[in-house]
């Protein structure tokens, strides 16, 4: 019976105080930030803001104190994350480092790597990007062709990474590439910690359909990496990457990407919405409340050291559906012709949401890949 459990999340002690503290901080920091900026959610990049967060101790919160962390629980970290997202804070600068690269370093890094980088990440001063996709390897990670070859004093990298979010504003990339034979689809890959100021690395921003430039193409031409750049075990790249996924999939960023639009929708509807609007608001709220419950449950499982890969995939899949539905339902209730940069906030927020919604079921594993993972998790043979 029942292939997956979602045990009720346990509220950490002091949760209410922490939440109040974060809200107070955000009320002050985001005071002048309009909804048309806040709708960017975790795509909004602001290095100053990230540094301030670091100063408050809200980056790398769960990490050991010796590496700059605060040794707080996953559910306390969850509170900070969801408050940031719900408020539309610009968290992109440190997001990847806090969510993925830091935990990866903690788990796989050498002592030197950890001492060197984790405190700077936690301070909100060191930003990371993920060099995973390639022109011919999107969902099919095992098809990467970028290759690192051993040299006398380290590695030489050649190849092209694509869709690398904020590479042009990051200090480091976690590079996933081939170090072994092409026949060994999974075994022949490794991860590297790449200082993006090294020679032989060219970063070219790519505009997306709304004209913003978050994506990059990163070209490696005989880029020399020191021996110390290897992250984890040579040949173990595939397994290391798979281990990151539960962190990446179950967070509140998987269902709050358009939350700011929902807030603006409520504003636009006013105090006496139609029955139709009430039903839509109620329905969306029920989805978000339940997702939040499930997502916090996964955070609790991760905290306990469980492997909730299936649950995380389910949260991401459900979350993308609701994130994408919000702009579609909003337009049924408030007639607007969306326009980027409009003075009419609803029009502007809706425009951003419409143009960006398609990405929600692509990033972090396409919907189809994710559902395949779920199906295997269900025991479909």
């Amino acid at each position, binding site marked *: 019976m029942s292939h997956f459990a979602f045990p*009720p999340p346990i509220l950490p002690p002091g949760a209410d105080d922490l*939440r109040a503290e974060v809200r107070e901080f955000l009320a002050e920091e985001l005071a002048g930030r309009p909804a048309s900026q806040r709708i960017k959610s975790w795509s909004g990049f602001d290095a100053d803001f990230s540094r301030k967060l670091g100063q408050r101790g809200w980056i790398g919160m769960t990490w050991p104190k010796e590496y700059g962390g605060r040794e707080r629980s996953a559910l306390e970290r969850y509170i900070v994350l969801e408050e940031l997202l719900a408020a539309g804070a610009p968290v992109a600068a440190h997001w990847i480092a806090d969510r993925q690269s830091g935990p990866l370093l903690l788990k796989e890094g050498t002592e030197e790597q950890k001492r060197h980088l984790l405190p700077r990440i936690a301070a909100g001063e060191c930003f990371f990007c993920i060099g995973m996709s390639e022109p011919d390897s999107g969902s099919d990670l095992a098809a990467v062709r970028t290759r690192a070859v051993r040299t006398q004093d380290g590695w030489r990298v050649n190849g092209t990474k694509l869709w690398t979010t904020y590479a042009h504003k990051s200090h480091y990339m976690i590079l996933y590439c081939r170090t072994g034979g092409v026949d060994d689809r999974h075994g022949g890959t490794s991860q590297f910690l790449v200082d993006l100021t090294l020679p032989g690395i060219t970063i070219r921003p790519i505009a997306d359909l709304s004209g913003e430039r978050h994506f990059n193409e990163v070209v490696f031409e005989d880029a020399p990496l020191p021996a110390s750049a290897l992250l984890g075990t040579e040949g173990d790249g595939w397994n290391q990457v798979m281990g990151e996924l539960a962190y990446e999939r179950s967070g509140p960023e998987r269902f709050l990407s358009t939350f700011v639009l929902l807030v603006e929708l409520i504003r636009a509807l006013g105090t006496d919405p139609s029955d139709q609007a009430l039903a839509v608001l*109620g329905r969306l709220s029920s989805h978000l409340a339940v997702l939040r419950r499930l997502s916090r449950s996964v955070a609790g499982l991760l905290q306990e050291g469980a492997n909730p890969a299936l649950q995380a995939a*389910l949260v991401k899949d459900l979350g993308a559906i609701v994130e994408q539905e919000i702009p579609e339902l909003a337009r049924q209730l408030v007639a607007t012709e969306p326009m980027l940069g409009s003075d009419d906030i609803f029009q502007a927020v809706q425009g951003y949401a419409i143009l960006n919604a398609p990405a929600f079921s692509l990033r972090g594993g396409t919907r189809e890949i994710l559902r395949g993972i779920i199906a295997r998790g269900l025991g479909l043979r």
Partner: protein
Amino acid sequence: MSETSEIVRDMSARLFADLATPARLYEAEAGVWDQPAWDRVQMMGLPLALVPEEAGGVGLEAADAAGLVASAATTALPVPLAETMLANRLLADAGLPLAEGPATLAPARPGDRFTLERRGAGWHLHGGAERVPWASIAGDIVIVAEAEGQVLAARVARSDVTPLPGRNLALEPRDRLEVDLELPGDAVAPLPAGITICHPLALGAAFRTVALAGAAARVLDMTVAYANERSQFGRPIGKFQAVQQSLALMAGQVAATKGAADLAAGYLDAYSQPGEADPLPVAIGKARAGEAAGMIAAIAHQVHGAIGFTHEHALHFLTKRLWSWRDEFGNDAHWQRLIGRRMAAAGPEGLWPLLTTL
């Protein structure tokens, strides 16, 4: 969960599975009341799960009692376990004698109302309710009504009323109740402060949410098993990507019913606390699970194909309950509107603070 509750849970699960055989489910559909099954359930004390120990009950936590309801729902066991648990809890809350057999509660539909008026030393109870679950089977019916600024529970013996029989799609009794009765003074008592007239609806909705989650999980299990077993075009249909994608989608909806059930069951604890009983978590749970139920049933039938459409295959015992229960004690649209009103009242700045209370 305590060790005792674990034992209760495991024993009950075995009992439900033993009792809910296809043969008995078919009989229940034909209108036969399964007294032997009820006797076994009662012998285990399950109808008293939600009654505090000091009131003569088992005093399970809400989550554990909900677990029993979910467990019974996975087997489609055709007895009013949830209704009797709730009726007894209401009786205990009001300090009235507990029910001795199967019982139920009313009203069970938004908008249905009864009126209570004092008449001498006793009360006059008047009104009607549609679709009261198991009213024609229950020995006692607990009717909640307002009078004199209080919310009261009235204990009515079914022998004093004549329910008009009806059925849901799963052919469980859902009966019309017309009441015009004189009740003795000790058959009516106030419920604790903070409880509103919507209480029976919220209680019922909470347990229907839990039951939907139980049935949904079972339907997923059956469908995955069938997909692994059934071959077409030379391989198990579960190997086809289209089937896999559908089942993944279904699993997401089943996960949502789990989260919904957790939220809803919380109401059963929360309303015992001082202050007004807030039905918002129930509203969210029932709305979300009710919405999921239809999608889950649709995908289950799509994957099962023609065989799942036959009366001989057991799938329909569960899907018919999904289709029925989602509409009972307020359908998803009813609860969505209630949630929507709360969110609209909270306003743009209050939405997130309200969501984070849940």
